[in-house]
């Protein structure tokens, strides 16, 4: 039981590190795309405000929520491996 708890804790820590990295990366991608779109649209209005509005929309988007897959996929993978290897 101790070993399982240790695996869960270590896994959680490792996946949290990965989650933060992917989160920062995805946000950076979105920010750059917003900056480019602002330029392409003819630079109307305040650049910072445009980007900020776009980022607020991004925070509510499905794409942002899909980041939770960083936790979900490995957990599903472990369950699948345990089943396939030991019970089929």
């Amino acid at each position, binding site marked *: *039981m101790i*070993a*399982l708890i*240790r*695996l869960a804790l270590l896994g959680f820590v490792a996946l949290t590190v990965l989650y933060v*990295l992917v989160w*920062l*990366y995805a946000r*950076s*991608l979105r920010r*750059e795309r917003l900056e480019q779109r602002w330029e392409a649209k003819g630079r109307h209005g305040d650049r910072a405000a445009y980007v900020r509005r776009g980022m607020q929309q991004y925070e509510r988007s499905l794409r942002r929520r899909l980041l939770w897959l960083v936790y979900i996929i490995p957990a599903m993978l*472990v369950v699948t*491996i*345990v089943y396939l*290897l*030991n*019970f089929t």
Partner: protein
Amino acid sequence: MMRYVKWTLWLLAATLIVATLHYNLPQHDIVRIVNTENRRVDFGENAFFWASPDVGSATAETRDVFFIQTVRPNGRPIVYRNEDTAWGWPPYFKIGSHNLQARASNLTSTAADPVWVAMRHYGWRNEFLTIFPNAISLREVEGPEVRIFPWLSLTILATLALIGLMLRQMLRRFRRRTIDPVLDEMGDRADRARDRAREAKGGFRAWLDTWRGKPRR
């Protein structure tokens, strides 16, 4: 000199990575099982190459380990251990070593009437350390010439490569979008400071020059 040191270190790192992958990734052998047994093992220098006790059991200095003794199609023997990896490394999450042992015993055969099985395993056999590959799963196959394509290993390698590329991409992006602007700003500031210093110095020189008399005739 430094170049050789650098290359040696790179070579060592590469060897370590390849060895780790080769040890931990699954491989298939086509073998004929000749015996299965259960033997007590006292772990010594080779303790690193043994997995964990059965899941839920106590950890001890010595314990009984299942072994599966087999012969390859070329007649040479290969002996596997059959241990739970449980929740430890490598992450096969194998908790059914007792069931696997029963299935291996069930498929025991003689040379006269062979039954061939594909043994999926990880690890190495080394006589100098007395270490054995750990059997993960087995299934019956038609004959000794069956070839099994290593889908699983290739998938794992591809995934690892993908993660590596992704990390590299993230690092590059971080450098371009976060570190470079700061460095540029610092560079600009340094340039401006230098200009100002030069100007100031120029001003001081000019002021000094005002004390010099005009060249005498």
